[in-house]
């Protein structure tokens, strides 16, 4: 069940990114848009799913990314990216896990249930580390397709997009929980 929830959450986040964020971004940064999004919401799903389920989130994320690519990427983009698509999918699915493992290695075991209570800032920091890992990995994976001159820009857009996506995802969830709280309180009156 958790597997399907994570995959569905990833597909939903990717759908919002693909149908809302990317069209707007492509007006301003058309040369980078095929590779990266400035607000990449699925990164929030990657980080939160890995926080909650550890390595068990990886297969669900792989399914989510694969389904998202199939559902939302234009065929032309998919054909263009195809040779390196599998590498890109795996790097994306493993990036958050690698960041959590790195944090664990330096003494901040932040997985759900391992620490009494995780501060939201710790999740943001781990998300930032994960976005750097993902950014480097994706740029390497698609280095053959990205023009040499575009590599620094794409690298920055990947990292910034992932991090902004995580923050937006957390803020959206925060408001959702807030509304649920208000709704349940007003219902109890």
């Amino acid at each position: 069940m958790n597997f399907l929830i994570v995959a569905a959450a990833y597909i939903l986040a990717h759908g919002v990114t693909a149908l809302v964020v990317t069209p707007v971004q492509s007006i301003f940064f058309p040369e980078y848009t095929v590779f990266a999004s400035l607000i990449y919401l699925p990164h929030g799903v990657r980080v939160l799913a890995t926080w909650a389920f550890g390595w068990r989130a990886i297969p669900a994320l792989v399914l989510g990314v694969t389904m998202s690519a199939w559902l939302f990427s234009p065929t032309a983009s998919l054909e263009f990216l195809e040779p390196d698509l599998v590498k890109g999918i795996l790097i994306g699915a493993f990036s958050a896990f690698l960041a959590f493992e790195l944090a664990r290695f330096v003494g901040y075991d932040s997985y759900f249930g391992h620490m009494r209570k995780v501060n939201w800032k710790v999740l943001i920091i781990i998300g930032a580390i994960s976005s750097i890992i993902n950014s480097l990995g994706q740029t390497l994976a698609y280095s053959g397709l990205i023009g040499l001159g575009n590599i620094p820009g794409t690298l920055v857009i990947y990292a910034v997009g992932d991090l902004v996506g995580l923050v937006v995802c957390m803020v959206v969830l925060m408001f959702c929980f807030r509304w649920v709280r208000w709704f349940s309180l007003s219902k109890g009156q």
Partner: protein
Amino acid sequence: MNKLSALFSLRCILRDMEKDIGLQELSAPEMDVFLAANAMARDEGAAVTSDQIYSHEMASGLAQATYHRALRSLVGIGLIEKANGYKVGLYVVRSDLVGK
């Protein structure tokens, strides 16, 4: 692994985030209970019982569970404090914190 406790934990994390970025504000029942407690306390620093607060017209319309949840929440936020030295539920309103 308990899926619900992960969700509960995430809610707690995001509630902290809400507090830290200054977005937390009182819900309608919390506001009613706070105003009722403030009205019943009359003098600054005076202690009031939970029953006294609940008897005020601002709070008496709330369901018991909602009232207690709101009171607990106000104690958690620090706008109402448990009075020192009393075993029974006596509360002090920290109206001095309002607006800070």
